[in-house]
């Protein structure tokens, strides 16, 4: 009798817990009890990230100078009008796209090649992988100075010396081809990131499917094009989108390697906005540019979010 009641009680409890996980049929008190642990993080994030953004929108409608804080004047959309006619802004926007896409695509191609090479068993594979991920772990500021000074310097840079061995005259990379120089440092840093994501994808391939393919007589090339590539697609998409989100904000390399120069030839949007705000002290303009950048980012971000959500199966589980 006692065992029966405890069994019934435990069954009921388990059922309650399952119902609770579904999140349906909850009392008002229970709902607030559940929100409790979430609220500190949520409120903190709203205050620290959303309030400054609202202030940015406010500033973007005003003419305001950092040196004269009382010079606040409502100007409507004049700042946005100025942006449209600002050719430097357009140049910076183009540079942002070139740098971001150039870096992400080259890094992804190299990353796929390296991941495929690392997916084969060979002695010392762990060491090779460790060497390959290291560029990603270097502090971006450190890697910027490493590239601009030790590698690309026209008089003592190692890269130019290496080119000299095959008879190419030294090139002042950061002033002659600033975007190429920045891309070298960025691709070097981001290739390991792509490689790690693709490698995780390769190693998550169901082994029985690969075996079945080989039993059915599929050669390595057919297995790769028919099984591995479709399987990798999701990982490649995720890598490209995450890469875009991170790389579009690139600031360190540009600030340290070229300072946006020569002139504004290699300035991307984050660097140009920084210049307008902290060197030009023009808050209204900088804020309006920030708003434009956010609007542009939203499109990429939406695609990225949809993909991340799909990878997580958020909808199905919660």
């Amino acid at each position: 009798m006692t065992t029966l009641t405890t069994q019934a009680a435990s069954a009921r409890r388990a059922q309650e817990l399952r119902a609770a996980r579904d999140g349906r049929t909850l009392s008002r008190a229970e709902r607030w009890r559940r929100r409790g642990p979430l609220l500190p993080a949520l409120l903190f994030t709203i205050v620290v990230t959303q309030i400054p953004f609202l202030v940015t929108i406010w500033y973007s409608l005003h003419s305001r100078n950092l040196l004269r804080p009382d010079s606040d004047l409502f100007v409507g959309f004049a700042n946005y009008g100025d942006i449209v006619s600002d050719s430097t802004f357009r140049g910076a926007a183009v540079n942002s796209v070139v740098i971001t896409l150039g870096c992400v695509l080259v890094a992804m191609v190299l990353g796929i090649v390296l991941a495929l090479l690392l997916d084969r068993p060979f002695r010392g594979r762990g060491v090779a992988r460790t060497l390959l991920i290291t560029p990603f772990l270097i502090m971006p500021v450190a890697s910027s100075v490493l590239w601009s000074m030790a590698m690309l310097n026209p008089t003592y840079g190692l890269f130019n010396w290496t080119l000299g061995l095959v008879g190419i005259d030294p090139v002042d990379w950061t002033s002659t081809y600033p975007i190429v120089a920045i891309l070298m440092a960025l691709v070097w840093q981001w290739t390991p990131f792509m490689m790690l994501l693709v490698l995780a994808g390769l190693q998550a391939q169901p082994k029985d499917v690969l075996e079945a393919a080989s039993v059915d007589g599929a050669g390595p090339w057919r297995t790769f094009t028919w099984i591995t590539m479709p399987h990798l697609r999701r990982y490649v998409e995720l890598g490209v989108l995450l890469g875009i989100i991170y790389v579009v904000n690139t600031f360190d390399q540009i600030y340290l390697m070229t300072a946006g120069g020569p002139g504004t030839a290699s300035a991307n949007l984050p660097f140009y906005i920084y210049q307008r705000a902290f060197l030009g002290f023009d808050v209204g303009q900088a804020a309006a540019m920030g708003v434009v950048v956010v609007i542009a980012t939203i499109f990429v971000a939406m695609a990225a979010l949809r993909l991340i959500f799909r990878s997580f199966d958020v909808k199905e589980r919660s």
Partner: protein
Amino acid sequence: MTTTAPATTAPRAAAPGGVRRPRRRTAGTLLTALTWILAIGFFFPVAWMAMTAFKQESQASSNPPTFFFEPTLDQFRAVVGESGTYVANSLIATGVSTLLVLLLGIPAAYALSIRPVEKVGDVLFFFISTKMLPVVAVIVPIYVIAGQLKVLDNIWTLVVLYTAMNLPIAVWMMRSFLQEVPAEVLEAASVDGASLLRTMRSVLLPMVAPGIAATALICVIFAWNEFFFALNLTASQAATVPIFIVSTMTSEGLFLARLCATALLASLPVIIAGWIAQKQLVRGLSMGAIK
């Protein structure tokens, strides 16, 4: 069944094998060689930075480059002597912000997985969308507000900002780890009459400890390396290690060896942490999407 399967496939594989295998082995050796060449090529700039850090300045910026030299610790001695405040600031900004992220993020992740609130998807969406907001779009108001609150060049300003910067990643990561805790385990604990706090401490915590470590690692990497906020919001009091590197750069005269020693020491904590926790790195960088 198990015995017949290899029997039917074996002859097919063996017949052409006699011709193919040596060729395939050569191809394999070539691919392995290529892998090593690429791995060493990618690592070489780091090795060069480390080598340069042990040189005298005249050897560091020589043309042709100096490959053989007598290593010296002079540069490291100088760097360690000058960098004290910067390192202390970086340790505070990184350590305290990571701790705060875990304190805020773990309960939030719990409320988004084990005992979920309504509209979990929306909350997750909000958190991650803040990561997509370009930092440069909010730097001006943050600078002005910090100025009005008199917290410019204050390390605690960086602590707050780094916490906000890493919190969304931590919530997503911790949620993906908490969701792996099987429902049966929690049910069993609850059926056995364990209190909520006890369940958390003795059942949940040990199961997700590796997840907490992975989350902390990612937060430490991002906070330690952060440059943009530090550049714009600090001056002499609250400057962090990345700022120290830049300040080395602007000093007069020959400085490449000194710079490399600084860059190497600054990167070393993250390099070592990343080497040790390679697996967690992948999961953290994809915000938990890739296991």
